[in-house]
Every structure is written in structure tokens, then in C-alpha cells.
């Protein structure tokens, strides 16, 4: 049976990179005693694939991993068996059986994030009204948002606007999420003040047009060169596929 699990990543383990996280899951799958399907060849390993790598330092409550089992058990049992093997900071939030064998990476269309300021300078006070105005002017009431993308070979101009599905300035980072996924928000190098605004965004995440939250923040607020005041913190909320008719549905709801 083909399985998709949704999991979270937060706390100290957010500093573990994607390749190491894959190796972590390979071992966890072996320890779980689930009869995971293996690759063939001289070094067989559990076949698994991830929707999208998560950068070092980024937290998430919407990561997805696909794998297959050679036995039939309930998604709830799979979730429990894996959770028994998880380290602090990685939780299996749900497991679903899938009919389609299409991989999460191929289905991935969009992603939603909560973005915030990590203050490097404690005296930095963001002006929420001005930030709202920037979003209105450059995203909501604009006809294009052109940035220059530099690659190793060339520079090209890209209009980001079609890649932005939603963008809002929130009064503050939702407290329940903040306290759970960023438990160190109050200290530890980044001061996320009680009253700081946060940014909600749902953007394109197709492999060809993946819009990174940092790039969008810079395009809207011109954050480049502000490292003395703050850097940008990112929390991934969910990842989406495109359903028939064009609407976005969470990868975990695609069967």
C-alpha cells in the first residue's frame, strides 16, 4: 500500500539539513518494524520521497513524505509506529493511504508560510501600517511585481505577481503556533516581540516556479541589507496540489 505522511519539524532539529533528515527517516522506518518496500540492487534502502526539502533553520507543520508498505495496516497504526521512533521536534501528524502513485514532489503546486522578523537589533520596531501599505501597493493593487533573478549564467526579469496566491500582514504571529513551533521565540538570538507583525503567504511551489518567501519579502519590503536589524524567519504551514478546477488542496488530502 502507498502511504503519505504529514509531519512537523521544529525545535533544535530544525538545524538538521534535508539530506540528514532523509537518513534519519530511513533509519526510523527500519526501526519501526513496518514492512517498508525496499529498492533493489546491492544496497537496498527503503523507498521514500519527500515533497520538498526544508532549508536549515526553517520550521514546519506541513512536510510530506511518501513510501510504500508490503503489508496492509491502518494509517493510524502506521502513524503510531513511526511516532514511537521520532526524536523531539519531528511529529507524524497524519498518515493517509493513497490510490495514486504520483509522488508528492510531482504533485506539489503551492506552499503556505508564516514569515516573521528575527531581530538582530532589539530596538528594531516594525511599522505594521507601513508594511500593510507596501503589500497593498506592490501586491494587492499592483499589476506586476518584477524582480531580477540572478543565476550563475544570466540575469532575467521575473514577474512574481502570478506566483503569489495570497499575502496578508497579520497583527502578530498566532500565539498557539508560535509557542509550539518556535519555543525559543522569546530568546535565543532572535527576539520575536509579542507585538511584532507576521506575514501569511501562499505562493507557487512548482519545481519550475518555486517562489521562496525570502525573495518575496525582499521584493515587497526591500529587506536586503537590513541584516543589522533583522533576518527573516520562516515557518512552513502546508503544501498543496492543484485539484481539478484549479483550487489548491493540501497534499495530505490528495488520494
Amino acid at each position, binding site marked *: 500500500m502507498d502511504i503519505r505522511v504529514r509531519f512537523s519539524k521544529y525545535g*533544535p532539529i530544525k538545524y*538538521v539539513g534535508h539530506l*540528514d*533528515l532523509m537518513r534519519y527517516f530511513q*533509519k526510523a522506518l527500519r*526501526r519501526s518494524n513496518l514492512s517498508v518496500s525496499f529498492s533493489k540492487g546491492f544496497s537496498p534502502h527503503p523507498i521514500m520521497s519527500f515533497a520538498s526539502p526544508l532549508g*536549515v533553520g526553517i520550521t514546519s507543520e506541513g512536510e510530506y513524505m511518501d513510501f510504500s508498505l508490503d503489508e496492509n495496516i491502518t494509517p493510524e497504526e502506521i502513524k503510531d509506529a513511526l511516532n514511537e521512533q521520532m526524536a*523531539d521536534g519531528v511529529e507524524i501528524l497524519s498518515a493517509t493511504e493513497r490510490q495514486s502513485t504520483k509522488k508528492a514532489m510531482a504533485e506539489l503546486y503551492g506552499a503556505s508560510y508564516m514569515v516573521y522578523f528575527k531581530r538582530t537589533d532589539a530596538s528594531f520596531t516594525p511599522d505594521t501600517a507601513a508594511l500593510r501599505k507596501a503589500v497593498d501597493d506592490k501586491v494587492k493593487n499592483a499589476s506586476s511585481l518584477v524582480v531580477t533573478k540572478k543565476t550563475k549564467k544570466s540575469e532575467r526579469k521575473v514577474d512574481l505577481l502570478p506566483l503569489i496566491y495570497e499575502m496578508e500582514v497579520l497583527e502578530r504571529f498566532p500565539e498557539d503556533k508560535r509557542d509550539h513551533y518556535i519555543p*525559543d521565540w522569546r530568546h*535565543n538570538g532572535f527576539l520575536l516581540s509579542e507585538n511584532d507583525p507576521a506575514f501569511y503567504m501562499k505562493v507557487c511551489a512548482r519545481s519550475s516556479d518555486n517562489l521562496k518567501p525570502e525573495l518575496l519579502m525582499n521584493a515587497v519590503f526591500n529587506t536586503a541589507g537590513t541584516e543589522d536589524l533583522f533576518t527573516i524567519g520562516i515557518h512552513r504551514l502546508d503544501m498543496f496540489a492543484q485539484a481539478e478546477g484549479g483550487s489548491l488542496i493540501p497534499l495530505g488530502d490528495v488520494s
Partner: protein
Amino acid sequence: MRQLALTDDILMQIEEPGRYIGNEINSTVKDKSQVALRFAFCFPDVYEIGMSHLGIQILYEMFNRRSDVWCERVYSPWPDLSEIMKERNIPLFALESQDPIKDFDFLGITLQYEMCYTNILQVLDLSGIPFHATERTDDDPLVIGGGPCAYNPEPIAPFFDLFYIGEGENEYNRLFDLYIQMKKDGSYSRRAFLRKAAEIPGIYVPEFYETEYNTDGTIKSFHPTEEKIPSVIRRQVDTDMDDAPYPSKPIIPYVRATQDRVVLEVMRGCIRGCRFCQAGMVYRPCRQKSIDVLKKYAVEMLENTGYDEISLSSLSTSDYEKLPEFIDFLIEECEKRKINITLPSLRIDAFSLDVMSKVQDIKKSSLTFAPEAGSQRMRDVINKGLTVDDIMNGAREAFLGGWKKVKLYFMLGLPTETEEDMEAIPDLAQDIAHLYYDTLPDKATRGGRCQITISTSFFVPKPFTPFQWARMYPPEEYLRRASVVNHRMKDEPNHKCLSYQWHEAKTTVLEGIFARGDRRVARVIEYAYTHGCYFDAWNEYFKPEVWDEAFSTCGVDPDFYTMRERDISEILPWDFIDTGITRRFLENEWKRAVTDQAVTPNCREKCSGCGCTQFKTGVCVR
């Protein structure tokens, strides 16, 4: 969720922040208010190297079995982080609790190779512990050293409160009991504790000893300065390998460690008696674990870790007597579980080739021979019981089995080495290449050229080996010898199949100074560290010019330690340690090597009377 010692802004700007977060699967977390003794175990090198070390995992397991002790780990922060910590005054911390090392009762440092000595000072420096043991107070952790380099602790003696000589399984519990008792009854002071600890077998407290020197710089005497302090420290030997603690739930790092697999120690010690090999001497007698114990650990460790590979560890795995039976078991278990098997330290013969063909992808893998010397004469001098027939038969079988890549390991600069011995190295490689074409004459079926890689290191004499009296050579001479090999190789008929790599010469000489140095070398190490040397084992951080400056500023002549052949009558800095191997045996072996060029049989063929029968265990009691 626990708080990290490093702030987010730091973790986001350094390489591999995962090295510093702890929290790995199977690591031990205790309530610090419920333990009486906190031990920080340090491997003074980067995390990926330190986490690959089996010894720490064994003692971590053993210490944490005690409910009154919490053992944690600490490694050398990589230079990127190290600089930030110094600049911002961030104290070095242990991974599990993220608490400062300064708050611990003990800082244990394992000494696996000499080139990590400056990193010991880095760890002390970042921890805020004075470099010199005698300058520490009752509030500082006790700094204890152990491991192979503790067999000559003198070059680093001033930096340690105490050393543990031998295998930790024996006396650590007694040391901990003493500490906890003295803390409880209020009698603890650093000095009072060290005074009593010095009476525990295997414990060496450097500050209770002094050295007098002759005018020529050699040692006149070495003796305790206080009553009841032993003048000889006896190596501790674990006599029951089956009952010894072993980590059946080893810690699984997130960051990929060098040794990214289950490691199963099948035996300790070696029967062979190669005259250059310190491990082969100081781990005597050879002690095998029983096959049932090994089977049990293999399965438990695979289940508890989820590793996809298992490796057997020992000095010479082919000498494990029930190897065929154990390999059969492993192959069956591992096939079922889809686990890879790797078998380092195997002698290349029909049996091992058969095994390897079952567990490896022949097309991708290479075979490793370690003849150590090119000529039979030289191999007899070092007592490497390997003949040219053994090598050629192994190679022939390997080529017939489908292997094409062969790696050959040698040493240059061995005692009595001549030009002919050097040239015999590429000649042997040539013979093997030639054998390939002889064995597989049909160009169509053999499928390409063979690849023979020659690799040489420069020989460094080590304490408690028969070569402990030998001289070394200047870096230019080592490089000259490497170029003799290189030139000869380029003239070989099959040179297109051969390639050659050699080791750094400057680090070799420094390693030699540390290996056989005395207490006067310590100030050179301190000077070098305070002038920017650390991670000397890493070429990109090795600063030979600073070391040159350190020796000359400190008035220490490096040649005194390397360029002299020692006289048998000279008092050596490590003579106060009794490893159980008699001085007479080592002297006799030295003479057999350089004068008689005679081979000494291995421990199973015939006891050579090294003295280790006194431990009444392993190969000595058959």
C-alpha cells in the same frame, strides 16, 4: 523543549549546526538534580570524527548505567564556531544538557592520536578551565585523559589532573565511588581527591611526580614526590570480554559521521606482534568475544539503530577463530534485513574473497593489502608475517573473482631501510599488475585495465613497541624516499596501471616528537596553541611555520626527540608505566629485528614470553 547553548543567529551562520544540538536518538538525558557526578566525555576533534569512535560509546554506556552518574559528550567546535565562541565569550558546553563544561565534575578526554594535542587546549580554553592542572581550583572539573596516547602522557602531562592507563572497564567505577563519597562526606578538595585517586590501580596523577634530567637532555630520574604515590603505574586489562559493557543502543548522529554504521568489536588485541604497531602491543593479550555474544549484539544493535550497514572491528579480523561461522550468521541475518556488511582488516585469501564476493559489489569495490613493506627482508624486520606468495595468491584469486582495483599500504622510513627496500614497493605493485594480465590474458573478457594504488605513510616509532628506540628522519629525507618510490614506479613496464600517494612529511615529524616526547614538550604545544595552532590533523589548518617558531622560542630542540636512536640504557619518558609487556621482551625484539632480522611467531603458534600471561586471559590461557 530544551534550550540550546548557541543562539539562532550563530547556528545559522556556521557549517553543520547539527553538530552542536545534541538530542540524537539513543543519547542519554538525565535529571541533573538526581545525579551525584557529571562527566563530560570529549573527543578533541570535529563531531563527525569523534562520533565514530567506539571507545567513547562503550564508556558512555558503562557510565550511564549508573543511576548516580550522567555522562555527556563534547567535541571540538570547528574553527568557524570556535572563533565566534572565543570572541563572544560563549563557554563550551556538553551536547546532552547544553550546560557549560565548567559545571561538570569531570572532563574526560580520549587521546586517540597525537595531532589532536592542541585541540585539548582549545577545549580547555573554551571551557574556561586553566591549562595547567596545578592552577585549577576545587571548583574546576577534574581533567582526566585516557586512550592509546596516554601510554606516553608526558608531553601533555601538565594539562591533566589525572590519566587512566589502560582499559576503562576496570577501575572507573572505583574512581567515581571515591569522588562521590568524598563529596558526600565533605572531605573533597581537588588535592585530597587526587592524593587518594593516585592509589587506584592505573591512575597516574602527573603533579605528584618529577623528572630530573642529565646534562645531555636525557632523563636522569623520574619519581613520585610524595609518600604512598606509586612509582609504577600498571595498565588495566579487562579480563572478561563477554561480560564487558557494550553499547547495544549506540547513539545515532543526525550529521553523517565518518563511521556511519553499526560497529561490532569482535576481539581486542592482536596475536601478530608487528614490531611497529603500538596497538598490537598495548592491547595484549588477544581476547576474543564469544560468538553467541556477538550474534546477540549484532541483532540488537541493528534493531536499535536502523543502520543499513554493519562492520566488524578488531586489529585483525581474520584471526577471529569462529569467523566463518559468524560470517554465515551475519550474511543470513543481513540478507533478511537488507543490511550491508563491510569487513575491514581482513587478510586477503580464498576465504575472505569468497565472503567479500557475497557481500560487496565487486565491480565497485577495491581490495586492500597492507604488506607495510615492499621487500621480504623489510617485512621480516617488522615481523609482518606475510610472504610474497600470500600476496600474489590473494591477488590472483581476486583477479579471477572479478576485482580490478587493488590498494597497497606501505611505510617508508622503517629501521634498516635501504634503497632496495624502497624500490621493492613499486616493484611489488608492478608484479601484481603483471599478474593481472597473466591471470586474465584474454583482452576481450577481462574488461579493462587494473588499477593498483600504492600508498605510503612515514613510520613513526611509538612507545611500548620494539621500535621505541628507533630514530626518525628530517622531512626532506622522507620526501626523498617518497621520490625514490615515485621515480621507480614511473619506470615500471605497467606504470599506467599504477598510482602513488604519500603522506605529509612535516606532520609525521611532529607526531614523532609528541609520541616520544617528555614534559618539556608541553610548553611548545601551549605556545603553538596560543599562537593559532589547532586542528593540526587537518592539512588546511596545519601551520608548520608556527610550530617551528614554537620550538625555537621555547628552546626545545625537536631533533633531540626524533633524530637520535635511543640507547637501551636510556630512561624513556614512559618507563614508569607497566603495560605488562616486559622491557626484556621489547629489547629482545628490537635486537631480533635489526641485528638478526628474525621473525617471531604469533601468539597462537608459540608464546614469545612478552609478559602478558600474568593477565591470565585470552590467547594466553589456551
